[in-house]
């Protein structure tokens, strides 16, 4: 079975030879130090109360840490752009899943307040009795 010597490199070759692209040690240690520092920042940030922006700030810090891990530890900054596209696509589709579901959860009582009320104020802690009787409709 003669192997036709189609030796051209794969069609999206990024010009590197066969030698792997190795980052200097300082980059890894620097990224690690930044991550530790940002973890401390995460805890510190949660101490202050920014009101409704609390979650946003916490997620922002987490995203910075995530970006550091993805770009340097996972080598995405020097690799084929296709892998970055795959990661960003997965995050895009996560947001596609979140947005309409949360819109639905929070606008059920837009036209009629009664649709927003959950009837069962049920708690399983044995102390509370099960309040299952449907409250009379508010006129």
């Amino acid at each position: 079975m003669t192997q036709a010597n189609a030796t051209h490199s794969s069609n999206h070759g990024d010009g590197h030879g066969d030698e792997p692209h190795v980052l200097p040690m300082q980059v890894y240690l620097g990224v690690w130090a930044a991550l530790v520092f940002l973890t401390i920042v995460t805890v510190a940030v949660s101490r202050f109360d920014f009101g409704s922006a609390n979650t946003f700030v916490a997620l922002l810090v987490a995203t910075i840490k995530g970006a550091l891990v993805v770009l340097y530890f996972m080598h995405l900054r020097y690799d084929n752009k296709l892998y970055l596209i795959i990661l960003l696509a997965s995050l895009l589709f996560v947001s596609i899943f979140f947005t309409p579901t949360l819109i639905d959860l929070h606008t059920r009582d837009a036209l009629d307040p009664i649709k927003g009320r959950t009837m069962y104020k049920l708690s399983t802690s044995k102390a509370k009795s099960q309040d299952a009787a449907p409250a009379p409709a508010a006129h």
Partner: protein
Amino acid sequence: MMDQSTSTLTMLPTQASTIAPGYDLLFWVITYMCVFFFVLIIGAGTYFVFKYRYRGGEHRVDTNHTHNTTLEIAWSVVPLFLCIGLFAWGFKLYLDFAIPPKDAIEIRVTGQKWAWNFEYDNGAASAKEFAVPLNKPVKLIMTSRDVLHSFFVPSFRTKMDVVPGRYTTMWFQATQVGPQQVFCTEYCGTSHSDMLAKVLVLPEKEYEDWLEKHRDDPNATPADKGKKIFNGKGGCNACHAVAADQAIPVIGPKLWQLFGRAEKMADGAQLTVDENYIRESIEYPNKQTVAGFAAGAMPTFKGVLSDKEISDLIAYLKTLK
């Protein structure tokens, strides 16, 4: 059983609510549009198949038309506008379904495994059928006691799921006197297909009488009140038969000549029926199940029926000979 005239020719049931004509108009507009496009596309396809059928010999093929940008843009933009138009009209109709008029009469509907119960503001209650006034808006505030159900009246064209733990609403204004069939259209188990009900559309006078009849009058005996709960708020008549000549329902045990009767339990235990056993079966039905009946079929009525109502029920059951 269903008394609307739904011959197989007319696709849609009779129009018995104010929104039905508007609904049917949009339904038929979509239908004619679909028929038009079907004939256009499939007609062209069928014509091409027969006109350019290979009749042997050398293939005569025109291979230079492999794309035509203007045509392709046209048949993308035109359907887009049609779709936007359909969306807008459809959503307006959807809002008509969703927003009840302010003066609508409120009726509370409760769905449970395989029966519908209805309660009015003046305390009237009924199961399996409920009255509504003719040409007056009615708003149903609905919830479920166990799993998902769905309240569907084909002749009103309205449908809304009934979700446990939450309220959902639906409204209609009936324009035709007579009983309208109600279906449950969200799968809910064994007798999902028997979870039917009737909307009795009555003129004003008869509607008031019906309400009076179903209201619990003050000087009724506990047994009378129990009977009203049995057929009304409790909805027990959906699963239990109360007289020897009643063939169905057979989902739950028969309840005549009940007191003092020896019952064999599913786990083999033998016990004679007394008041405590009845009260316990109403509040914790799954503790003991009579042999030969499905466990877990009966929902709990704890917190739904007050203790006084349960004693009325027991008084009524005692009268069943």
